[in-house]
């Protein structure tokens, strides 16, 4: 099982949001897939899958997120 967290390169200080998940909960993803777009201070960044497997989304789009926050798991 691999945790998917918000990297500091995307959100260092304060809060941002996952503007959109590009994969659905329960879908199979591959390492390197762009899983989501994260918006911070009007800039958009890409959240990349660190591993392959089944995606479990823990934080839905449009909910505030912070650095290092656990937002999904890949099993």
């Amino acid at each position, binding site marked *: 099982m691999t945790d998917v967290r918000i990297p500091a390169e995307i959100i260092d200080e304060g809060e941002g*949001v*996952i*503007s*959109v*998940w*590009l*994969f*659905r909960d329960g879908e*199979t*993803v*591959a*390492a*390197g*897939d*762009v899983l989501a*777009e994260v*918006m911070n201070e*009007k800039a*958009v960044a890409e959240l990349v*899958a660190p591993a*392959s*497997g089944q995606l479990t989304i823990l934080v839905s*789009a*449009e909910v505030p997120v912070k650095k290092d926050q656990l937002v999904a798991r890949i099993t």
Partner: protein
Amino acid sequence: MNVSASTSRVADAKHTESTAQGVDAVPRRRLTIAKAISEALTQEMDRDPRVLVMGEDIGRLGGVFGTTQGLLARFGPERVRDTPISETAFIGAAVGLAAAGMRPVVELMFVDFFGVCMDAIYNLAAKQSYFSGGRVACPMVLMTSVGGGYGDAGQHSQCLYASFAHLPGLKVVIPSNSHDAKGLMIAAIRDPNPVVFMYHKALQGMGWLGTVQRSIVPVSDSDYVVPIGKATTVREGRDVTVVSWGLGVHQAVECADILMKEGIDVEVLDLRTLAPLDRDAILQSVQKTGRIVVVDDDYRSCGLAAEIIASVCESGRVALRAPPCRVTFPDIPVPFAPQMERPLLPSAVKLAEAVRAQFVSQP
């Protein structure tokens, strides 16, 4: 009625280059419509130095609806121009640039704002080629957001498909997914005549507007074209044709899923282009099913839905088994209050009710 579950396909299956089940060795790239439009613009600007982009907040911000992400950094302020809030000026300028041999793409942030710049669009751009005997082309793209559903009231929520599709000399396209968005934008830029490229806010992938997940599909990084004027069948069915475009495609697919459980087999057409209308594709489908329902989130009267139904009726090629039906927004301004706006918009549930009524025997 015919009952068939086996012909059903998901909306995006048609467009996926790599929908293999299980873990793929190669990453599969999915884009939002916003990103797909940005990528189409980037690739065309790389390919053709005559392509440039102008509009409000399309530079530093990358577009209020994300259509120009990364362009300013890559191409600089000469080719990616943030304009003052004067559609009259910059859309008029685009017509002149196009006549002089450039290929401008201009963004009208909300289609609702067309009033102040319409002369440049329908009297100048649309008629340029015709008036000059084909000697002066007008290769410009007007991209603009359409649609409501998020409480932005009567001047930021309209669709106005018919207002543009009505006018000779304008082509009008609207994608329902990111694959088509990229291919239609490339086709629009390469077209020698003005193309109105509409994108629906509810499909844009910008988060704050909500996004229909089915609009996010795999997108090739090649510079492919989706031909203007060609509809596509996103779901085959035997009993009834639902004609749709933009957001309506997703409501139609959801409606088809609901009705499949009730034994009604719905065929869903995605027009992709509103002008010129692919009447052959519509007729072909309705000849098979004998029933037609059109979903149109524009105002009801004198709308595209009416044009589609009239085209079927006057063709003389179809014996309809039920009166044709349209599911539309009513003839009133879009309300601000969500509890007033929501019930007025088309939905999968409303569409399913309309389709069911096609199977109630007529007196």
